[in-house]
């Protein structure tokens, strides 16, 4: 199969890569670009561990072709912190012990970031349904929901 040349923007950087026509964005990120923060938990869009934000919408990167990235704007977990300054969600996940094994954490963070961008003050129910596509098998979700609530409050300027 002839490879496809793709030019895209990932975490504010212009990135060019070659990929096979049937290669997923997840495989491109992990295998060609070294962005291994996105994880493959299922490959079928059921677990959310590969979540990335494409043109402002959170998607499963396992269900996007690499070729589709042409001209898009992509955010991955590697771009979430500003240098050494963690995003409030990242900080709150650590503070609330909202992660155990951590394999689902990058996906949860991307999805939660997308949530707070459209809904800065979500209810617990809204958080739970928005994050229903991100599976976590360790935490029972309790501390994850609390971390998102706390990060949202901080981002709204309600707590220190």
């Amino acid at each position: 199969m002839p490879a496809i040349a793709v030019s895209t923007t990932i975490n504010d950087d212009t990135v060019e890569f070659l990929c096979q026509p049937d290669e997923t964005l997840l495989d491109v990120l992990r295998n060609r670009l070294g962005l291994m923060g996105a994880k493959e938990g299922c490959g079928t869009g059921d677990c959310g561990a590969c979540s990335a934000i494409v043109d402002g919408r959170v998607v499963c990167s396992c269900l996007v072709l690499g070729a589709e990235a042409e001209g898009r704007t992509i955010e991955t977990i590697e771009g979430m912190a500003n240098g050494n300054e963690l995003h409030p969600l990242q900080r709150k996940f650590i503070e609330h012990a909202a992660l155990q094994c951590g394999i689902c954490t990058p996906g949860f963070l991307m999805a939660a970031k997308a949530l707070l961008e459209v809904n800065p003050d979500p209810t617990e129910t809204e958080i739970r349904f928005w994050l229903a596509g991100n599976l976590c098998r360790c935490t029972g979700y309790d501390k994850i929901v609390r971390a998102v609530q706390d990060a949202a409050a901080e981002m709204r300027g309600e707590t220190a």
Partner: protein
Amino acid sequence: MRYERPQTIEDATALMAGAEANAFVLAGGTDLLVRMQSDAFEADLIVDIKAISGFDAITQTEDGFVIGAAVPSAALSEDAALVAAWPGVVEAANLIGSTQIQGRCTIVGNLCNASPAADSVPALVAADARAQIAGPAGTREVAIADVPTGPGKVSLSKGEIIEAVLLPKPEPRTADAYLRFIPRTEMDIAVVGAAVNLSLGDDGTISAARVALGAVAPKVLLVEEAAEALIGSNLDEAALEALAVACSNASNPIDDKRGTVEYRKEVAGVLARRAAQTAYARAGEN
């Protein structure tokens, strides 16, 4: 395998018409890429229709709404006019998969995947929506119910692509609702789906109704007897019971990993009742 991203519908249909054996249209990809994971899957051509002008738009016309084939489901709920006009269609589309899936999946894809359990299809059928199809021989329109012909099968000819879904402008005091049953609260395929679209007359009785069921037959069912049970009533208990019985009787489901025949038949009636109550309340507010 080739990946093509045509800029016009003419190029897209030409690609599909001239394709080798296994050609697939790619919009949201949330079904297609899952199939691609399978070792048995083989594709020669994938035609990505997202670059075609207008395909990503929801347009309000005098006749209703035109929803482009590449509009992700999440965008439907962001269109206030569409939500106001067809809340059941939007809630059905918004039940497809997770937030992540919502960012990609389309109602046209949901239709063309031709799963008997597709969430948006019963709602579209109840809404009397139509599909606008482009092909090498020009464009045509068909009723949504006529697109799927069985599990995984559609009535499209070689080279044809659904460009858009056309939703009519609802009559006054009309509303729809969709409910599905899944074991969890999210992420499952519908075990049963029920859509009800109804209109109220001046006296508050139901003057028109369409009831459609999903996941209880090889393809979506439009249940005339169920509609008849509603028409002329004020959604009293007798009408609801007749509706439920009609839906249960019309259901012809299978036993599988998601539910049993008995379960699906019974719950089809339960959901139709509940959807009718929601639609009735909404219509009263319109």
